[in-house]
């Protein structure tokens, strides 16, 4: 099987004055179609950096990112925008709905950029909102919804264009545990339907929702394997040492 996402020695470095920050350091990994992967790590470990690269919002300083056989580093801004539109669905911690648009219009946005006709857009957006059980809130404004409902709208928006990958960055970060479970349940459902899902979180208890875990530490991959293996939950030396000292 050809992998959907392939990182070959991907690094992202930031020069901050005299020091070089290695947000991602020589990461190599592959994600296959239909997988549900959680990228886990402490704050500052490089999760968002990876997600930005996977999401074609950023390009690596060195190394290759191959998305569905295509080297993303060779693409221009327009082509990147097109890939984000057609191949990726984003779910953000802060929902990131457009406040001046209705629920339905929000879900239609990526479809509009995809060039769909008004009628097609409407139809697909309603289907996606049906899927997250919000078909009764089509004309509501985002601020008239609860956090969990807003996150479901953003899931619908991510789904609507039928992307190859759904990228969720701390999707439950702003939700209570009950609503979090609902959202995670929804992601699992999508996974069962065959979607490829990359979930980014710092929380182990959420990471176990996935079938595979990639654990990052200081920009390195320190674990890449099944979520149910005992090593998956091992926290790095770093933390243990730090913990021992305190």
């Amino acid at each position, binding site marked *: 099987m050809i992998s959907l996402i392939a990182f070959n020695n991907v690094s992202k470095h930031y020069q901050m004055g005299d020091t070089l920050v290695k947000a991602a350091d020589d990461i190599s990994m592959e994600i296959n179609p239909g997988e549900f992967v959680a990228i886990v790590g402490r704050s500052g470990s490089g999760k968002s950096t990876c997600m930005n690269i996977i999401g074609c*919002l950023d390009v690596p300083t060195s190394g290759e990112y191959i998305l569905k056989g295509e080297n993303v580093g060779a693409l221009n801004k*327009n082509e990147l*925008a097109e890939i*984000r539109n057609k191949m990726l669905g984003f779910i953000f911690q802060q929902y990131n709905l*457009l406040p*001046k648009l209705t629920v339905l219009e929000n879900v239609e946005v990526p479809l509009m950029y995809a060039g769909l006709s008004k009628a097609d857009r409407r139809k697909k957006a309603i289907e996606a909102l049906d899927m997250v059980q919000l078909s009764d809130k089509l004309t509501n404004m985002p601020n008239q919804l609860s956090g969990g409902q807003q996150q479901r709208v953003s899931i619908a928006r991510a789904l609507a264009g039928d992307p190859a990958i759904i990228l969720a960055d701390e999707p439950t970060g702003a939700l209570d545990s009950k609503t979090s479970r609902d959202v995670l349940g929804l992601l699992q459902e999508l996974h069962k339907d065959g979607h490829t899902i990359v979930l980014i979180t710092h929380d182990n208890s959420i990471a176990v929702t996935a079938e595979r875990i990639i654990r990052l530490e200081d920009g390195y991959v320190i674990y890449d394997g099944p979520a149910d293996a005992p090593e998956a939950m091992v926290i790095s030396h770093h933390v243990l040492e730090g913990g021992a000292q305190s």
Partner: protein
Amino acid sequence: MKISESIHQALQNIVSSKLRAFLTMLGIIIGIAAVMVIVGFGNGMENYMKESFQSMGTDTLTVSINGRGSSRSVSEDDMYKLVDDNSEYLDQISPTVSVSGTVKIGTETLDSTTATGVNEEYAIIKDYGISDGRTLQYLDMVNRRRVCVIGAYIAQEYFANNAVGQEIRIGGQKFTIVGVLSQQVTEMEEGGNDDMILLPYTTASRVLSSGDINSYTVKLTSENYVTEGEDAITNALYQVFESEDAYNVTSMSEMLEKMTSMTNMIVLIMACIAGISLLVGGIGIMNIMLVSVTERTREIGIRKALGAKERYIMTQFVIESAVISALGGLIGIGTGYGLSAIATQVVASLLDTSMVIVPSIISVLIAFGISAAIGVLFGYLPAKRASRLNPIDALRYE
């Protein structure tokens, strides 16, 4: 994504912050309205002048002869012959002797009335009709009769339209009214075109003036022969006087042209000054659009993450700015029409003239075009900035 959708989006954004949008538009509104009123004023002035000049005849020339010592002179007969010799261009001629004596009817003095000595052709040259009595005739000239024809204003004001046979005193001399000219302008006024007296030039020059006839009105065969007619007269007079200073030939159309180009110049300068407020308005729009780009950084980031290309973001902001500006333009056009109507009333009541301030359709179209163009122009920079935002930075922006 279609333009109509971008426009719809832009309108939604404008409606969601009406006051700000209105204040942003204000510069454009004021600029457009000011330009329209000023151009309308210019148009009104031009029309007014044209009308006045046309009533004096654009197909006539005025010849005035200053003479050159007493050795050389031209008589009326020389002038009549000159017209006959150039009948291709010159049609008719009449001496015009301006009478300076006071005009009195009974005990009343008519200060603004113009009295002119002319021949029997003058009424034809000027296209004056007769509403009562008769025109001046050849015999009136030959016999130096003390008769006159009066304008409709005098007949109406002083004789209750029953003037023929009555008497009028000019420079102390009694004149019998033999005819009344038809009304020339719809609103007759003192000192206007209908407040005049025509009398035989022979009488005028002998009785009321120094004697020499030194001014003529010449009618051309056609409006198109202004230059040819002028040349013919100039050449003939030069042969007599051998000096260009001894005479002067002017045409109404020439004077109209000069006056028009002068008013046009003034209007242009004023319109330019008003146009500066359009520029200021444009800068205001740019300023607000820059603020709006900053405020909507996160929105831009989200849209980019969802697949908006730079071009879409660019179009969205440019269209928004163009819509604000064009909307301002429309309001400005409405205001401009309103102010023009008010200005017409004000001018009419202040200056006692019937000048109509009309913004020309072309100036309205140009005004609208300019306002939309300003939006595009001054929206370009903010839009460019918006489209160039890095999606990650934009998404992180609070």
